[in-house]
């Protein structure tokens, strides 16, 4: 179903601005040289465009991967070799938190008990508007398109339609909705001010508690998102 759709898209991400700065001693110029050294063997990024100057890096980075889409950056409705980058967001902060909690727990569940299990992430939102968005919530195969374990059906589907955005039920957050936007022009150029969220994994109970400041805002069990 096509519809005029607008709203705020929420994301929860790792904060990567200081990954090397925090761990390798050196001036900012040294760290810049080190990042360039690491990038020598990375897939090249699209950087020198008008959008790169116009948009917040939190938005533009999702459109900066060289195309066609390399294997490590596939996602739902974004198959390998697809010719468009995309920005994913939840329509509520809680949906973005559920989506992020899955990946947070996935990388920690197999680790030995002695390790610490907390992480700081950032949350932000950006305004989105598409007069002709593709809403698949009533699609007869919506359960396949939003399958938790495979993106395969969404890849087949997206190759059969032409659209700049997809609205779909979240695979991780019951009653939550996500939006995938292929067209950067449908997003505002700036985001809300990023806020810090702390994710804590409780291994015994196989759940993740998400704190904003000192308040727990979500408690999410692995079985509800996996």
């Amino acid at each position, binding site marked *: 179903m096509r519809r005029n759709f607008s709203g705020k898209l929420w994301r929860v*991400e790792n904060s990567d601005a200081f990954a090397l700065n925090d*761990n390798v001693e050196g001036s900012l110029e040294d760290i810049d040289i080190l990042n360039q050294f690491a990038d020598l063997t990375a897939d090249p990024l699209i950087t020198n465009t008008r959008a790169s100057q116009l948009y917040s890096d939190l938005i533009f980075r999702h459109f900066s991967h060289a195309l066609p889409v390399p294997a490590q950056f596939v996602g739902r409705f974004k198959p390998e070799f697809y010719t468009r980058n995309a920005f994913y967001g939840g329509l509520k902060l809680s949906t973005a938190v559920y989506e992020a909690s899955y990946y947070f727990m996935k990388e920690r569940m197999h680790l030995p008990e002695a390790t610490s299990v907390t992480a700081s992430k950032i949350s932000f939102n950006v305004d989105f508007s598409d007069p002709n968005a593709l809403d698949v919530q009533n699609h007869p195969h919506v359960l396949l398109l939003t399958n938790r374990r495979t993106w395969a059906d969404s890849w087949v589907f997206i190759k059969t339609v032409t659209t700049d955005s997809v609205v779909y039920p979240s695979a991780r957050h019951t009653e939550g909705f996500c939006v995938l936007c292929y067209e950067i022009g449908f997003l505002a150029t700036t985001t809300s001010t990023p806020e810090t969220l702390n994710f804590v994994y409780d291994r015994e109970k196989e759940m993740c508690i998400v704190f904003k400041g000192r308040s727990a805002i979500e408690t999410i069990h692995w079985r509800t998102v996996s």
Partner: protein
Amino acid sequence: MSQEAVRPMTADERAKREGSIVCKALFTILSDLDLKSSDMEKILDVSRKTIGRWSDADTVTFKNENSLTKQAASHLIGAYRSLATIFSNSKDRQAWIKTEHPELRQAPIDLMRNSMEGLIKVRRYLEAAQNKGA
């Protein structure tokens, strides 16, 4: 007060600066991930003598711009960059690198030690994991 303009680095100066910071990064990774010198030798395909020379000189040198050792060092630093984004704690990074991973089906350190393909696989995996969210 001096009004001297900042002079851009020459290619030679930049190469020296790069050698020095890459060396610092490699030894930081060795210590931060609690790796053995033999792990680094395997990952970069260099001898113990070369590692010792880099340590003494506080700089790394590569045979040429396209040497496999240089590529491996670049991949290793890229992998570490993503790992440090996902895990802010050194103990978590050590655990992740040394524990068999359900999707990679081996401990990442073993993949990285065994071949350049393994090192690239771990880097690509971490880059993807780093970007997951929403």
